């Protein structure tokens, strides 16, 4: 219960940051996704179950603030990221840091691909621009997570 409240509090703090700070740090049309960054840290610490639940809830909250026609566009990839990164929970001491970084990048890239594909569904979007946005989004979040994990180490919860 205390953990759930703690996670909820983290989300409550992360949302204003995403709403007001992320637009200031945007590159082109892409803004950093602080919710995703926090999700990676929480999932690796508390495992798949917490990752899926938090990813879905946080993603859905992001969707409500976005376009009506895309409700679920964040909830879907964030649930998957919660599951994949949650796998790290049992493997943090087994995998090498390089493999962990690669795994995190892969998960974030998967998130970017799913999200951008949903965003351009039904639009005659140029492939180059879509690829550009996918790579930019994935790189932006990966650099932040991988940089931050050397300041705030990813550790599995003892609970």
């Amino acid at each position, binding site marked *: 219960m205390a953990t759930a409240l703690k996670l909820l509090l983290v989300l409550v703090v992360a*949302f*204003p940051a*995403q*709403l*007001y700070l*992320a*637009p*200031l740090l*945007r590159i082109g*049309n*892409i*803004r*950093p*996704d602080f*919710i*995703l960054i926090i999700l990676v840290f929480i999932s690796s610490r508390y495992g*798949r*179950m917490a990752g*899926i*639940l938090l*990813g*879905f809830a946080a*993603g*859905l*909250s*992001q*969707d*409500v*603030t*976005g*376009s*009506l*026609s*895309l*409700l*679920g*566009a*964040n*909830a*879907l990839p964030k*649930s*998957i990221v919660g*599951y994949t990164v*949650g796998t790290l929970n049992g493997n943090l001491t087994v995998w090498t840091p390089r493999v962990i970084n690669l795994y995190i990048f892969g998960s974030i890239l998967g998130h970017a691909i799913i*999200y*951008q594909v*949903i*965003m*351009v*569904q*039904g*639009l*005659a*979007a*140029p492939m180059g*621009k*879509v690829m550009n*946005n996918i790579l930019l*989004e994935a790189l932006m979040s990966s650099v932040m997570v991988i940089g931050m994990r050397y300041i705030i180490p990813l550790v599995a919860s003892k609970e």
Partner: protein
Amino acid sequence: MRNLFELLFYLKELLLLLLAVLVSLTLLLTSDSEQAVAMQGVYANIVGAVPRPSLDLSDLISYKAENQTLRQRLIRYTLLNAELADMARENQRLRRMLGFTESSPFRLQVAEVISRGASSVLSTVTLNVGAEQEVVPNQPVLTLDGLLGKTLTVAPEATVVHLVTDRNFRLSVKVGSQGLRGILRPLYGSEGEIIGISSNGDIVPGDRVLTSGFSDIYPKNLPVGEVLEVINIPGESYSRVRVNLYADPQNAEHVFVMISRGDGP
């Protein structure tokens, strides 16, 4: 039976993921429902009630450059205003001569963008005006450059705007010297495409795209964008016209909601 429960318990994380994916997909397929609109109304209410810092980091960084740009704009608009006043006089005279009824100006409500959503890609903006300022759904929203969208969900002190760049946005427009009519749909980012334009129409890059007036929402001649390219596909009787949209939702700070199309104060 016990084995089944054990299997389900063993696969609980995967089952939870499947459930989350299924719910997300269902939401994606039914997201234009009334419940979704109601949820966004609740969000608009919350965002509208949260006090926003009066000065943020971007203000400090961009203050000087913005000031200079605004000064230049002011001079440009002063000159343009003088020219327009002259043209308005001429127009009035011609209208009187033709026996036209003098049209009333639009009534506009100035609004500030208070949120651009929490997604990594911009898909909606929220304004700091709402029902208390006479805003209702389906009113045009403009920037100094052109049409930004229309009001969608209205809370007492906040309004969510359906942007011209949103995938579901469609607009009847006219373009070129002949005023050819077509339907504008967004492409990606700040670009759009007009469909339904005859391939033998006289349209060249740089032509302005304006609202056609064939709508209960948008009056005619609101600036929407500029033609970038006309694509004629051999064997097809319609051209595809690529358009650069004037409105820039990423940078729009202050906008105007068109409260009424006539009988201003």
